[in-house]
């Protein structure tokens, strides 16, 4: 797993798919004081720098890991890179488009068309079959039903669920449900896939298998993966270590030969 330690500037930035410049995300703990609160001298709520002046570039086809302990800012950085959240300061660009200038509706459309998301929990609709769950984003894109079924079936077959296509989530194991969730994230053929603790709900062996399948089925797509588990991060080309919302030592670690 050992590899050469490189500076972030060493990464090929000729075709960055995502670029973050001095991104900061500050949360307030508690509510703002109202007018009466101000008159009574109530102070502003304390703030937390969930992400603190992070700059990075992620090239097309890279598998990048975000490592760090709980509360280090991994998930918040994923949300910022995908446009789920807006930074308090700094900019996030996706293929040259500054996401901070987009409206909420435009960012939603951007995520639908360009980004696949895999969560720690599978978040499948219990009332729908595996195939219908996978095909749901295509409904939003207006893809005809026959085409949706064809593409969802092919993807489920590729991920080894050919005999579980019509099963509902309640009839699937945890590993199978996560495979369905991965297929749902990939069904729109996104340029970037983000995964937040994708094996967090699975046992070690199943998690390792799922990750290998994820990597294969993702086929050279750009993946940003957040995990505190070193074994999970082994599939990454490089790992960015976060501590207290900032990149630790502003270094990345080369893992994949």
């Amino acid at each position: 797993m050992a590899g050469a330690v490189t500076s972030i500037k060493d990464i090929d930035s000729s075709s960055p798919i995502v670029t973050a410049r001095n991104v900061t995300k500050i949360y307030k703990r508690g509510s703002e004081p109202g007018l009466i609160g101000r008159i009574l001298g109530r102070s502003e709520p304390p703030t937390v720098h969930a992400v603190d002046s992070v700059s990075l570039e992620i090239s097309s086809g890279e598998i990048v890991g975000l490592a760090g302990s709980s509360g280090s800012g991994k998930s918040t950085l994923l949300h910022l890179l995908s446009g789920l959240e807006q930074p308090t300061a700094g900019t996030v660009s996706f293929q040259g488009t500054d996401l901070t200038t987009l409206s909420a509706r435009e960012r939603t459309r951007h995520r639908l068309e360009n980004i696949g998301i895999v969560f720690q929990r599978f978040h499948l609709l219990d009332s729908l079959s595996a195939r219908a769950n996978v095909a749901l984003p295509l409904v939003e894109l207006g893809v005809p039903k026959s085409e949706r079924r064809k593409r969802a079936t092919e993807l489920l077959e590729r991920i080894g669920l050919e005999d579980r296509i019509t099963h509902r989530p309640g009839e699937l194991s945890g590993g199978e449900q996560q495979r369905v969730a991965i297929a749902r994230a990939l069904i729109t053929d996104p340029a970037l896939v983000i995964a937040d603790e994708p094996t967090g709900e699975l046992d070690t062996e199943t998690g390792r298998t799922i990750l290998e399948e994820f990597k294969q089925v993702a086929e050279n797509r750009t993946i940003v993966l957040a995990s505190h588990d070193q074994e999970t991060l082994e599939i990454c080309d490089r790992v960015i270590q976060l501590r207290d919302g900032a990149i630790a030592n502003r270094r990345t670690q080369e893992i994949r030969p």
Partner: protein
Amino acid sequence: MTLLAGAGIGVLETGEQGFDAAERDLWVTSGETRITSAGGGGFENTLYNSRNLSAEMEAHEDVQHAIPLAFDTVYVSTNHSDEFHTFVATGVPGGGPVVQITEGEGIQGDTHYANGTYEGEMTREVVIDKETADSLNISTGDTVNIGGSLAAARQNQFTIVGISPTFERMLGTPTVTMPLSELHQVTGTTQTEPATFITITIEDGASVNTVQKDLEEAYPEYEIRTNQEQLSAVLQEQVLLLAAAGALVLLAIGSGIALTISLLSLVIHQQRQTFAALTAQGISRSLLVSTVIGQGFIIGLIGGAIGILLTVPAVSIFNRLAAAIVGFEGLLQTAPWIYGTGLGIAVVVGTIAAATAGWRISRTPPLELLH
């Protein structure tokens, strides 16, 4: 809800059938036709001097028969027991086709009332219903003591000559049917000759409305009604009963709606993180709400269908219980439109509740639910 609606419809239908089964065209009453709370049930006897009055009405050229009918509470004991039970006794001037006999014979006339006096010989014959026979362990040929008071009951013995369900069905309670004059005799009311109704059968081809109008003009102090009007009058005077029944139906609908909304809100609430995850992936609110509405529609449809499927055996069980306990057959009557309405309400409420819950969740920022 379908059961309660079926009960409401059944009560009305059974009541109407009861009046229709009597095969009378007009009903004459004096004042309100109250269901009495005394004894085992029945109506209050508020129409006095009934024999003379019915004779006068029968004199109308289009009236075939005018027959007084009385319901009174009496004490009944069997000859092998000193224990007295209260029953509703029905006094009829004679037998005939109005009293349906399923076993034995009917009453053979009203000989005790002869030429305006009560000096004729008493037949001392009664007809009882099957439930009375079963509860007292008696049958045709046995004797019973009947009277308006315990003392009168001890002195008046009657022979059971037949079994009839007619008045048990009409009143919904076990009854003893006997000649009218003998009922007046054993209840000590020969002086006033009270009756609950005078029932009128008109001549073939005569107009019910014309006869009704003539009698109303001749006897303005009495109410003269058709079968349907008489049933309505009886029910309208039971305002509390109807209000309670209406409240029960409203309560059933209200609680059904509340339960459906709660259930669907819970179902949707349990999926809130999934919806948040889908929103994060770019699924629009409209598609999410559509998905939720689809779930609500299906849940409402399945729930409504299960409710209808359960209603069928439940109606059968309740009807058997009602027939065994109070004597009414077909008390719960579920017309197809009741099933349709029940299913419609389930589907509509399910869909609306799901849409409301889905809309609320779709308005919540996904990260608030995913954190």
